[in-house]
């Protein structure tokens, strides 16, 4: 297709991608991302799918009043808004403070090694 492979790898030394992926810096980056992203995925999938499943199969539970006229269902919906916004802020912060500098280390090393021009 469209001689794509050629364009994409002009100026890339043979084996550079494999070397890049196997470098310790890259492993540090991927580990760090995985450690922060996986728990967040578990949190929002549990929070949101839990709400959706209760909406289907736990209608009585969601009807329990928790704050005046507001029932547990609406409280959990509000909780999902807060959860999403909190995760967004936490992820933005972790990415900017931890991941972005690690990406820079990997990219600088890959460029500095002369494998990518």
């Amino acid at each position, binding site marked *: 297709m469209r001689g794509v492979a050629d364009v994409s790898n002009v100026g890339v030394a043979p084996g550079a991608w494999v070397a890049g992926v196997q470098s310790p810096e890259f492993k540090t980056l991927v580990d760090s991302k995985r450690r922060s992203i996986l728990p967040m995925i578990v949190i929002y999938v549990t929070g949101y799918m839990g709400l959706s499943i209760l909406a289907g199969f736990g209608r009585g539970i969601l*009807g329990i009043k928790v704050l005046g*006229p507001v029932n547990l269902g609406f409280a959990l919906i509000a909780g999902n808004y807060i959860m999403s916004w909190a995760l967004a802020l936490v992820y933005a912060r972790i990415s900017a403070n931890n991941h972005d500098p690690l990406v820079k280390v990997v990219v600088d090393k890959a460029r500095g090694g002369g494998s990518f021009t």
Partner: protein
Amino acid sequence: MNPITIGIFVAILLVSLGITVWAGRWTRTTADFYAAGKGLTAAQNGFALAGDWCSAAAFLGFTGLTALYGMDGALYAVGPLVAFCTVLLLIAEPLRNTGTYTIGDVIMYRMRQPPALAAAIVGTIVINLAYLVPQMAGGGVLIRLLFGLRYDVSVVLVGLGMTVYVAVGGMLATSWVQIIKAILMLGAGLILLLLSLKGVGFDPLVLFASAEAKAGPTFLLPGNLLKNPFDEVSLGLGYMLGLAGLPHVMTRFYTVPDATTARRSVIWVMFLAGAFFACTTIFGLAAVHYLGPEALRVGNPGGNLTLPLLAQYLGGGKGTAGGDLMLGFVSAVAVATILAVVAGLTLATSGAVANDLYVNLIKKGQVKESQQVLVARVTAIAIGIVAILLGILAEGVNVAVLVILAICIAASANFPVIALSLFWRRFNTGGVIGGMGLGLISSVGLALIGPAYLGPNAIWPLVNPTVVALPLGIFGAVIGSLIMGRDHEHEKRFDEVTFRTQTGLRSDYP
């Protein structure tokens, strides 16, 4: 006909046409046409994403659903925000790091085989048309209502507007139309929120108590709209993974310079659109409180006129200057919303046809830059014409099924293929075809034999088949990959994919 509505509407139309002419002058290359020169800031793209994601279905629909069905409406509204968690954590940055203009680019980059790209093109076009037709039909109904025009004339007007935006101004014009629309929409939302709460002494609990008292004791419980429990689960699954497979939302990540900006634009949209969606729940309850449930059911099938009616009431009531002003403002914003969203959909579809199908699949990339832009513009016009024709045919058809279908296909066919392309070493062309094929066939097939299309004669019980179609899509993707077998040369390229996905190195080399 309301002169204030017409005045505001004409003003919005003139401003957006001015932007389109201005953007047209700057649109020379394919990067300009499909991706606004990749020069948008995080805030600009965040507002444009909010514009894309708050379609009229969201703006008018969630409010109406809450007013008519209580908690199910609120469940519809919260999903799109949670959906952006998937986009933020898994999709936005990798997509920006590996693609150029379209979702097809990502598949092509990973697979390098024409059948894989062809499958991605089919998926994109089916989803976009399924999403586009109800928007056209909604626009036609709204303009007929506002200006007293015939339905088909209204659809032609919507189609003409969006075609001019896209064909002349490309992604730059489309983005700015979205940004302006998002600002207007958020402004309208803020005014309505303050007016809604002012009447109850800024205590939202009063709205809950009053809605329950007026609409009955089951109103605040789930299940008033989605009777089948599995439909609630399908709704959640469809949202959580479907958004990350909608082509017109995903192409927005190509308009920013890098993955960091893509990430920050997701944070923007999560706060802008999330806050707006939360407000639709308040609006729905406020409509029950102020107007009463009976008034909302008269001449308001599906509840789509709830928000304009509430705005009119809060502005001072029917026949007052304030009521007319608010009704006019909200209606004009709704029409602008439809125009902007259909423009975004048209652009994403023309990317799939012109860039993926014509340039990459048929011509193998051997097309000059200036010709590519020309082809893209002509394609946009052709899609505009197709959309107008389908929109006219859709009169009187229950179009709600199409929106559900679009999200279901996006979750069941597109999402597994995109995610596995980025993250699974053994994924291959067989997997793309298996996943797209099984996801697409099961979504479309089950939706067509379900209650959304066949009503009481349905053979299949669920309105939204995501809960079955998504596992089938994933199953097809895995089985397809295994049947095609391992190709060690191909798997070696996964190192390149991984490295680029994570670092963005050489992200603008296709």
